[in-house]
């Protein structure tokens, strides 16, 4: 079994989905994603057995670029996140009847293809190509299937597109510069390159522009809440669940190994920015009235922590960020799904207009509670393992970092519980909230099982990347 199969299947699936009619598109996409989920699991098995599942093929001789897809602990974990989350996301979208579903799901699969490629590629340029490719589908998904008035949506999506694209072009320039030094784009060569501090600084900053925007890190975040709000739920899930992980993954894979000897001041500044972002986003989440925006800022706060951990650059930070990426992926998809379910019933994202759900839908409430508490890192959920490891990593670097970043567990609890109280609790006001359907139940149950299962026995996953 070779890891490139996953990419091929995604492309084939995308084509098949495009070819199918609107009715069957979602099912085709689901089947494709499920096949890939299975394949990813098989690959994991093979990888653990020590089989080589990598793929390398010379592509362009001048400049030297090869199609190199290597599976290691990090990329495999990310691949698993992508492949396993995608069926959940697609299944979660069954709630909504999208027009031109075949195009939508085709784009979704194409985006999955690009994201999986980003995680697998070990050649800087191939990686960059996948990185950019992932941007196009989500742009169109947001643009064509998003909510709100066309004009506003267009402005939001264009800002998002321009912003992220702008950042990544600097990364391309950095790669081009690295190529002039090494004559290769291969990760194995680039990670060995010895840079002077000045060079490392510039390259670090170029990468940071790309990743900082994608993640997003304060103050490069302004696109995020708007984009999350205007995208259709499936787009929001893809964005927050998988796509922003590309940024953190890239820090771990590319930025820190290559530009690791960046000057301490820059590194510290970046970590401090991440931490400032945590508090900043948490406070905004506290004052958000729109559920989707609240979740967007909450996501930003969480990811800020992950980024801070990744930038610490020690092994604890490394594993912490991987763990939290997976945890956050499932949590945030769960949260947006919950928001979507509420939206389907109440037809609003305004928290003020919700309430009285608990008395009508205890199952829904239970799921809400579990996912919410996983989000704020309650021990026993996977979110805790991630936050714990990350905060520990920060404390290894500087205890004050951990203290300030740790305020997120307080503020996170504050805004989440506040939201929960206003959105779910309280009395009914003659609004009918139907209990979750079987499909919804299934999706939420899977997410909860993953979160709790991995929270209790994280080795199931962490063994992949911790030697």
């Amino acid at each position: 079994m070779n890891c490139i199969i996953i990419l091929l299947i995604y492309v084939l699936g995308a084509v098949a989905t495009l070819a199918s009619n609107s009715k069957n598109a979602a099912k085709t996409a689901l089947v494709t994603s499920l096949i890939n989920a299975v394949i990813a699991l098989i690959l994991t098995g093979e990888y653990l057995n020590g089989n080589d599942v990598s793929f390398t093929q010379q592509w362009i001789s001048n400049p030297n670029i090869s199609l190199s897809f290597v599976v290691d602990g990090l990329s495999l974990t990310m691949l698993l996140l992508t492949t396993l989350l995608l069926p959940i996301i697609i299944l979660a979208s069954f709630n909504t009847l999208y027009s031109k579903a075949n195009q939508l799901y085709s784009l979704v699969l194409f985006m999955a293809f690009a994201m999986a490629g980003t995680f697998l590629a070990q050649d800087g340029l191939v990686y960059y190509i996948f990185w950019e490719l992932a941007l196009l589908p989500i742009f169109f998904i947001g643009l064509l299937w998003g909510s709100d008035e066309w004009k506003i949506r267009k402005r939001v999506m264009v800002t998002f597109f321009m912003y992220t694209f702008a950042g990544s072009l600097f990364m391309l320039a950095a790669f081009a510069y690295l190529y002039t030094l090494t004559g290769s784009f291969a990760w194995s060569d680039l990670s060995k390159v010895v840079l002077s501090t000045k060079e490392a600084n510039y390259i670090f900053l170029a990468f940071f522009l790309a990743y900082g925007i994608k993640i997003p890190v304060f103050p490069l975040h302004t696109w995020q809440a708007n984009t999350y709000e205007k995208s259709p739920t499936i787009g929001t899930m893809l964005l927050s669940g998988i796509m922003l992980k590309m940024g953190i993954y890239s820090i771990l894979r590319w930025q820190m190994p290559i530009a690791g000897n960046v000057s301490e001041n820059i590194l510290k500044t970046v970590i401090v920015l991440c931490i400032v972002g945590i508090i900043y986003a948490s406070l905004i989440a506290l004052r958000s009235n729109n559920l989707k925006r609240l979740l967007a800022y909450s996501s930003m706060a969480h990811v800020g922590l992950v980024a801070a951990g990744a930038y610490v650059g020690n092994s604890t930070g490394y594993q912490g960020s991987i763990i939290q990426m997976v945890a956050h992926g499932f949590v945030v998809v769960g949260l947006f799904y919950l928001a979507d379910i509420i939206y389907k019933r109440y037809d609003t994202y305004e928290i003020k207009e919700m309430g009285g759900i608990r008395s009508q839908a205890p199952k829904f409430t239970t799921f809400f509670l579990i996912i919410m508490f996983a989000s704020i890192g309650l021990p026993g959920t996977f979110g805790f393992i991630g936050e714990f490891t990350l905060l520990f990593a920060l404390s290894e670097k500087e205890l004050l970092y951990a203290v300030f970043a740790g305020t997120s567990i307080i503020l996170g609890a504050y805004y989440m519980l506040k939201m929960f109280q206003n959105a779910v609790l309280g009395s009914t006001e003659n609004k009918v909230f139907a209990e979750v359907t079987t499909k919804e139940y299934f999706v939420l149950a899977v997410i909860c099982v993953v979160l709790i299962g991995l929270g209790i026995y994280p080795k199931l996953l962490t063994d992949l990347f911790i030697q």
Partner: protein
Amino acid sequence: MSTTILLLTLIFPLVGTLINGFWGKHLSKKVSGTIATMAIAASFVTSCLFFAYIQGSQEPVKIVLFEWMKFNYFSIDFGFYFDQLAALWLLFITGIGTLIHLYSTSYMSHDENFSKFFTYLNFFVFFMLILVTGSNLAMMFIGWEGVGLCSYLLIGFWYKNQDYNNAAKKAFIMNRIGDLGFLVGIFVTGYLFHTLDFIELKEQSFLAPTLGIATMAFFIAATGKSAQLPLYTWLPDAMAGPTPVSALIHAATMVTAGIFMITRLNFLFDLTPDVQHIIAIIGAATALMAATIALVQNDIKKVLAYSTVSQLGLMFLALGLGAYEVAVFHVITHAFFKACLFLGSGSVIHAIGGEQDMRHMGGLKKHMKITYATFFIATIAISGFPPLSGFFSKDEILLTAFHHNIVLWVVASLASILTAFYMFRLLFLTFSNKFRGTEEQEHHLHESPSAMTMPLIILAVLAAVGGLISIPGNSWLNEFLKPVIKNNAASHPHVLGTTEYMLMGLAVVGALVGLMVAYFKYIKNKQVPVNDNNVSGLQKLFANKYYLDDIYQSLIVHPLNFFGSFFKNQIDGLINGIVLSFGRVPSELSYQGKKAQNGNIGLYLFAFVIGVCGLLYYLFMCY
């Protein structure tokens, strides 16, 4: 000792949770309640077995299930550690837990979410057991946060009332502040000693410069969970939950987690005397402050809540003085009488249909004999009259304080005198004189059913005789805990001298004074507390809880909200504006450029010639 039996102790409540959680809706209330109660009872049985075992062999049991987390220089096990300390907590958690479950089957019988209540309650016990049996700090943290979760769920159990939800939220967040402390403590400890395991920590710990930060952080965690200054304000609000919850979680078990944790880590705290001093001072201050607030409270549960805070303060005082087993002793006796008091108040509230204001009670003695009797016993116990349990445990604290620092002793004694006063005030206002409620309420007054009175009786008995486990001079508890507590550095007045007897006498006299004042005020003069708005002076300060809540509101909550809005409305827009200006600048340039490109060929040619001149000038003149 079979590990299976030990694990069963944990598993029973979990099974109870799961059964009630998944199928509770389909079960009848009776079955549901029985299952929950039986689960805890079964746990109690296994706890007893373990207690018997450890009493005999003295050998703690460590169970490691699997490796939970792994870092490059150490790993954290998913394991349990059953020792003497855990045994004590196991016993009274499951023991009192069983009683309160039993009580709840009756107390909650009219609630529509009956099974959910028991789900949460069982879940709480499960987490509490993890907290006390976890083999390392991280495991303890699971329980630590888990009980916080259940506390949140149970305080906000009547979720339709947003005030209750606010209280629940407040409890959780205040606890989280402490939890951050816990985490910081864990991090420093792990970083310093490369382990979080209690056994290894005990063996390997040494004094390091940053250890003080760790112990201070742990103490902050304890102030959160055990409701000490400055984080105690959630506990009185937590009375929003059903009364059995208050009894179990906010009096007997959860709030003692902080004491448990510090006792567990006594070897670390012993290394940092500065932090111990802080603990002692905070403990004493909390004890006095809460006691003064309790003087003027009119809500029956609020009085008990402040009383709890005050008593916990005394325990922390003991901890700060290094007298860990004294603190543990008071935890146990306090669990008995405070649970009894809460359940008693629950019985009262139950009887008058949910009324909690003492001003509308009175004269219940006639209607609720058992409740009154048990309540009376518990009140004497908490006020520190010999030979009931409270006397012994409180007196030991006072004695220890006296030997360390006379100021602390004075404060603590004052707090206990006040305790006697406000407890009797409570007793008299509730049970004596005439009923002050509505006629309809009076009509319904009745003694509670046996499922409620049974636990009351048992707890009252325990409150009465519980002091026997550590009577001065011959302390079984002290011996039992010896393996757990590394340093018995604190002086233990188990050899009684004149000073000790004098102090005991003073304490009793003090309690009597409290009683008499209350008697004269509320029985003889039949005073009824005035409305909150009409109080003045010191009373007003007390009634407003030293304005601590308001201070927090204006110093923390309001700024947070302000900054949240400020960031959301101003800063985010500003940043966005800066980002967009990167687009506006080219776009403005483009606009101006369009004007320049005016379609006039003369201009184009002119630019052409200028360009040529420029090129030539640069190349040939510009050397």
